[in-house]
């Protein structure tokens, strides 16, 4: 397929393309030049990749002063295109009135789109830099509050990034 979507047929090729060797040499030249470029391969898992602030790793819940910011409004759950989020609200004596009695994200369903982060009225759910997600069963992939809650100190750079690009 050519770039404009038109099919290239054998008879469309030029003479030089049809004799094949010059094209091979062109390709080899590119490979050879790459030997002298900056290396971008990381020796994972010995070395780890530190993603930029714009990276969308797995969603986490922000914990501030020992409680989750989340008010269990369920908007993330509603907007999630993959139906990954389940929230059960309940009443709390705190000023925010409601809190998530249960908050679960099914990481197998999640497609890391960041819609939940975008819709949240409390900046309570944000995309972290965590990209290593390994499970041995479907059940394990359902993260509850225990795995989702992260102290605000650890996610400051993402919050700042969000404020800057609002």
């Amino acid at each position, binding site marked *: 397929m050519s770039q404009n979507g038109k099919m290239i047929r054998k008879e469309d090729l030029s003479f030089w393309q049809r004799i094949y060797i010059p094209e091979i040499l062109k390709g080899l030249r590119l490979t050879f030049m790459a030997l002298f470029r900056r290396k971008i391969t990381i020796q994972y898992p010995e070395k780890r990749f530190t993603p930029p602030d714009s990276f969308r790793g797995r969603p986490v819940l922000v914990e501030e002063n020992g409680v989750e910011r989340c008010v*269990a409004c*369920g908007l993330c759950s509603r907007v999630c295109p993959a*139906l990954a989020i389940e929230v059960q609200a309940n009443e709390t004596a705190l000023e925010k*009135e409601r809190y998530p009695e249960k908050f679960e994200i099914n990481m197998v369903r999640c497609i890391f789109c960041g819609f939940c982060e975008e819709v949240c009225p409390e900046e309570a759910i944000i995309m972290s830099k965590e990209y290593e997600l390994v499970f041995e069963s479907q059940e394990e992939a359902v993260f509850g509050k225990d795995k989702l809650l992260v102290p605000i100190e650890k996610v400051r750079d993402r919050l700042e990034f969000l404020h800057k690009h609002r």
Partner: protein
Amino acid sequence: MATITIDEKKFEVDPQLTVIQAAAQQGIEIPHFCYHPKLSVAGNCRMCLVEIEKMPKLAIACATQVADGMVVKTRSERVLKAQHAVMEFLLINHPLDCPICDEAGECKLQDYAYKYSIGASRFDEDKVHKPKRYPLGPNVILDVERCIMCSRCVRFADEIAHQPVLTFTQRGDHVVLTTFPETQFDSPYSMNVIELCPVGALTSTDFRFRARVWEMSSTESVCVGCARGCNINIWVRNNEILRLTPRQNEDVNSFWMCDEGRLGTFKFVNGPGRVSSPWIRKDDRKVTVGWDEAIAAAASGLKAFKKGEIAGLASAYATNEDNFAFLKFMRDVVGTKAIAFLEHTAGEDDDLLIRADKTPNAGGVRALGIGSNADSILRRINDGAIRALYALEDDIAANPDWKNALAKLEFLVVHSPVENATTELADVVLPASTYAEKHGTFVNFQKRVQRIRPAVATTEQDRALDGFAMSRWDKFASHNDRWGKGPRRDARPSWRIVQSLAGAMGTKWKFTTAENVFAELAENVPEFKGLRYLSIGTRGALLRTPQRVTEKA
């Protein structure tokens, strides 16, 4: 008749009507907060302003009577400007609470903010803050900040519930809705103000924060709390009932229902007390068995007695279909005439909705020709003449006389959705579906036949294939989603259990749906003649009176 023009269309209308009523009749929406068809006109929200030719100022449609030749404009530029202004004004001190507000998704203020407002506020001062959790009574909690002072709840308390305890205090933006000192709003109808409130100021103590409205499915059904049979919607999420709300039916309950019915008739469906599977008593121990074994045990148990020794108790809690199948079984298969049902009354009829008869179906059982004189059966059990009893969904043993009598029986078969004093004494217990898990009909005290529909799925039902109302969660849940795994009970509608039992005793019936049973019922019982599920619809239909005159309620 008066001829009026609304938005350049001419209509002939009743001159007694107000502009808002006349427009509503013609399908033209005039936005309103304080106006409600069942309450007096207050005219305080100003949302219903319309332009009327020859009137210098805009007029409120809820308090302006139509007149011949009147020309009304509901969407002129002046009107739109006024609507924007009213919305902006109402929103000045309104909190940005939608994410945590139970009303979100069914809120007039929210809807109108899209439809009738420019969506921008010029107010950048601090909003007034007011109490967020003020209990008006045991069942209703007020969020004063969200109140738009429409006074619907105040008028409801005065005019419908006849408990005039709500009022406003303070002035201007400090107005606060409250109860009079030393009173609380605890009328048996108090919770109706929750739906009546156009915003989320009034919330249900029971349902508060339990779910967002868009997460639930809603199914049209009928309250089983008393013989009124108020029309309701059953709201379900993850196969669990979370709330009941009244559904308008001018012939039965108008817009209302009582708090008792709303709170007291659904928890047992979700509850831990359900009969989890059929069981039989072996050597004085309860043994859980499969359906076939339980049915076989009931059949062989009943066959051991002569027909004169067996009696049947129908139930005013069961549907007409269930009682009809039961009656057919007792008469045709067992061959006994000892059939009756127990009445359950408490208190008195009041002048709004509540009936002393606490069962939804006593009228239906009577229409089938089953009498409520169970005393002769009771006596014959005590005499030892009746030795076996087959009983539909009713806690007979809650009555001490019956409890003693049941203990004397040699064989007792019971259909029951929940474990209770009667199942304690039974030899075979067959788990029956509740009203929220099956199709069927009840007959209310006005002799109105009304339909119930399944809202909660049992193990053998499938929400999609069986035509249930489905929420988004129901539609997309797969095998590994916890939110799709709400508990399902192994229960069956009584008419089907009776059919299986008839089969086990050698008589095959061919009902496949509750509608089939109803069709045969309507053929055989004169009062039901000509009725069909389709004609009963969502509003109900009156039984024919024995004199064959159709009356209008």
